[in-house]
C-alpha cells in the first residue's frame, strides 16, 4: 500500500491482508539497499495470523519517494512518523542489519508503543570499510557484488533458496542494484556514522530478541556479543549454518523464532 509521511509517498507491503491499525502490528525493517521483498517469507505468515503487517521501503528505496535519509537517527525519527501517521498502537519491530540499528534507535527514542524488538544479524554499530564506502558511490556494481558476496553464506553462493526455482542471491542482487548507487551509498554511510548503539541498547525496556547467524561475515560474533551484552535479558538464538542474510537463508528457523517471541510478547487479539 502507499501512504503519505511528511508529504512524501511511502510504500509498504502488508503481507496480503489490508493494513488494520486496530490489530497488533509487526513492522519489518530491512538492511542497506534492500526493500520489502527481503521479508517475503515472513510477512504473509504474520498477516494471516491476525497481525497487521507493515513492511516498509524506507525513503529513496524501491517504491518509496526519496531522497534516502542520511542517518540512523533520521531513519528512527521517520519510523516514528510512520507509526504516528498510521496511528499504530501496539508494535513489534523486526530489524535486519541496518534495520536493527534503526530499530535500536527508535526503541530508545520512542518506547511508548513498542511491545517487542527482534534484532537479526547486527551489532551495536556497523563500521564499513573505506573500500566498500567508496565503491558504493563510485563503482556501485562492485559494491553490490561485495555486499552479496559477503552477505550470503554457502547456500546463497550455490544459488539455493527456500523457494523452489528461486536464486536468493541473484534476487538480492537485483534488489540492491535497483537501489544503487544512491540508496546503497547513503545507507552504508549512515551505518558507518552511527555511534549511539550502546546507549540506545542500554535504554531499551521492552522484551528483546537477538538472532545470530553462525557464518555471518558482516556482523561477526564479536559484534553480536556486544549487542547482547548491552540489552536487558535478551532472548538469544543462533542459527549455525546461515550467513548474514539469515531471513532469506534460514527462513523457516527464523520465522519460528520470531513467531514464538512475538506471539508471546505481543499476542494478537
Amino acid at each position, binding site marked *: 500500500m502507499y501512504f503519505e509521511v511528511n508529504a512524501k509517498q511511502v510504500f509498504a*507491503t502488508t503481507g496480503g491482508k489490508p493494513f488494520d491499525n486496530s490489530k497488533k502490528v509487526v513492522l519489518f525493517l530491512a538492511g542497506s539497499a534492500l526493500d520489502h521483498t527481503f521479508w517475503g517469507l515472513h510477512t504473509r505468515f504474520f498477516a494471516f495470523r491476525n497481525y497487521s503487517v507493515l513492511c516498509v521501503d524506507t525513503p529513496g528505496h524501491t517504491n518509496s519517494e526519496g531522497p534516502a535519509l542520511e542517518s540512523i537517527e533520521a531513519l528512527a525519527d521517520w519510523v516514528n512518523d510512520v507509526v504516528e501517521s498510521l496511528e499504530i498502537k501496539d508494535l513489534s519491530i523486526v530489524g535486519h542489519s541496518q534495520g536493527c540499528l534503526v530499530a535500536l534507535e527508535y526503541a530508545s527514542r520512542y518506547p511508548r508503543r513498542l511491545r517487542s524488538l527482534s534484532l537479526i544479524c547486527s551489532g551495536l554499530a556497523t563500521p564499513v570499510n573505506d573500500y566498500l564506502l567508496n565503491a558504493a558511490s563510485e563503482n556501485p556494481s562492485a559494491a553490490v557484488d561485495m555486499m552479496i558476496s559477503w552477505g550470503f553464506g554457502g547456500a546463497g553462493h550455490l544459488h539455493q533458496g527456500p523457494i523452489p526455482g528461486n536464486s536468493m542471491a541473484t534476487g538480492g542482487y537485483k534488489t540492491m542494484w535497483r537501489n544503487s548507487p544512491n540508496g546503497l551509498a547513503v545507507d552504508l554511510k549512515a551505518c558507518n556514522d552511527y555511534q549511539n548503539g550502546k546507549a540506545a541498547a542500554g535504554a531499551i525496556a521492552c522484551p528483546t530478541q537477538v538472532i545470530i547467524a553462525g557464518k555471518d561475515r558482516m556482523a561477526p560474533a564479536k559484534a553480536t556479543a556486544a549487542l547482547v551484552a548491552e540489552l536487558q535479558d535478551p532472548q538469544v538464538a543462533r542459527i549455525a549454518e546461515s550467513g548474514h542474510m539469515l531471513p532469506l537463508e534460514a527462513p523457516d528457523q527464523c520465522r519460528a523464532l520470531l513467531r514464538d517471541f512475538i506471539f508471546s510478547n505481543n499476542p494478537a487479539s
Partner: protein
Amino acid sequence: MSDFLNFDTLSLHAGQIVDPVFGARAAPIYQTTSYVFPDTDTASSIFNLERGGHAYSRITNPTVGVLEQRIAALEGGAAAVCTSSGMAATFCAITAILSQGDHIVASSQMYGGNISLMKNTLPRFGITTTFVDPTDSDAFRKAIQDNTKLIYGELIGNPGLDILDLEAIAKIGDDHHIPFMVDATFNTPYLCRCFDYGANITIHSVTKWMGGHGTAIGGVVVDGGNFDWGASDKYPTITEPYAPFSGINFWEEFGPSAFATRIRAEAMRDIGPMMAPMNAFLLLQGIETLSLRMDRHLSNTAAMLEYLQGHDQVSWVSHPSLPAHSSHELAKKYLPKGAGSIVSFGVKGGRDAGKAFIENTELASHLANVGDAKTLVIHPATTTHSRIDAEALVAAGITDDMIRLSVGLEDVKDIKADFELGLRAAKRISKA
C-alpha cells in the same frame, strides 16, 4: 574482492543441497507426486505462499528445483521455472503477461514452432504478432503498437543464424516499457548471458545443448529480475491482486522473481506443463559438462566450416563466425567464445541434391533436433519449417537447398568422412 563461484563450478553444484539422509552426491530423483506435510499449519502456509516447500509435483519438485536454480545461477536470473518442453516454456511465459487484445513484436527468423505459436495459435486467444526482420533493430521499434506487451526473438535465429542486437532491442523495450524475451536455446548461458545485455526474460529448450544428449525433452523460463513491472499499468497479471491466492500481488511481494512466481502460481497449476523429475535428472547430468561440450561443439564447428567452404559440391555456407555473414560483427560482440554449432549450407543441385546428401550420410543422424552430442542434419523446408507458408519461409531465410547441420562431438575427421559420402551422392544427382 568478491568471491562468487564461477560458471563451471555452478554447472556442477548450483541449486543442490546434498541429500541430508543418505548423503547422495548426485541430485536424487524425487519420483513422487506429492509430499507429506508435518502438520496442518505447515501445509496451509505452503499453499498460501507464506513459505517455500513442496506440495505437489505439478507445481514444484525437488529434483526439478535443483535444475531450475542451477539454470537461474548460470543465466544470472532471479528465478527459473522448468517446463515439459521449450514450447511449453514459451507459451507459459507469454500467457503470464499477455491477454486477449495484446500484441507481440517478434523476429521473423525463428524456430517454426515459435512462428506457428504466434501466427496460428495465439491469435485464437486474441494475441497477435507482428513479425519483423531481426537484422533491422529499428523495425522492432516501428512495429510497436499501443497494445504491444512483449518483444520476442531468438539470439541466434533458427535456421538463418542471424544475431539479434540485444542491446539495441533492449533499449527499445526500455523506451516503451516492454519486456524483451529472448529464446536463448542456441547460445546457452555459456556463450552469452542475455541479461547482461538488457534482456528481461530468457527461454530455453533445454532439450538441446543444455541437456546435450538427446535423452530428455524440457524447457525453462528464466526471470531476469530486471524489469520494473510496476512502472506502468500494462501488466496487471503481475501488478494487480490475484484472487486465487488471497489477492496476492506478485510484484509487491516477490519483486525480482514476480514474473516467475506468476508462472508457477498460474500456468503450472492451471495448465500443468511440468517437467518430469527423471528428465530433470538427465538434464542436470548434461549441464554438469556444458562448458566442456560447448567448447568441443565450437572447435568441431570451426573445422566443419573450413571443410564445407572448401568443398566444390557446397554452394554456400552460413555461420555468424564467417566474416561474410551479415551478423558477424554482432556475433563477435555477443558471442565471443563462438556463435554456436549450427551451420546452414546449400548443396549444389538444389532440393534433390540436398535430399541425396541427407539420405547418404551414415554417421550424421537425420532427425528433427539440434544440440545433441551427435551430429545431426535436416532439410528445414520439408521438415521443421514445413508448416509455415512460402512467404514466411522466405522471411525466415529458408531456401530449398538449405541443409541445417548441428555439429556434434564426434571426432571431426569422422564427421568429414561421413559428409564426403553424402556430398558425393549429391554430386551424382546434380550431374544426372
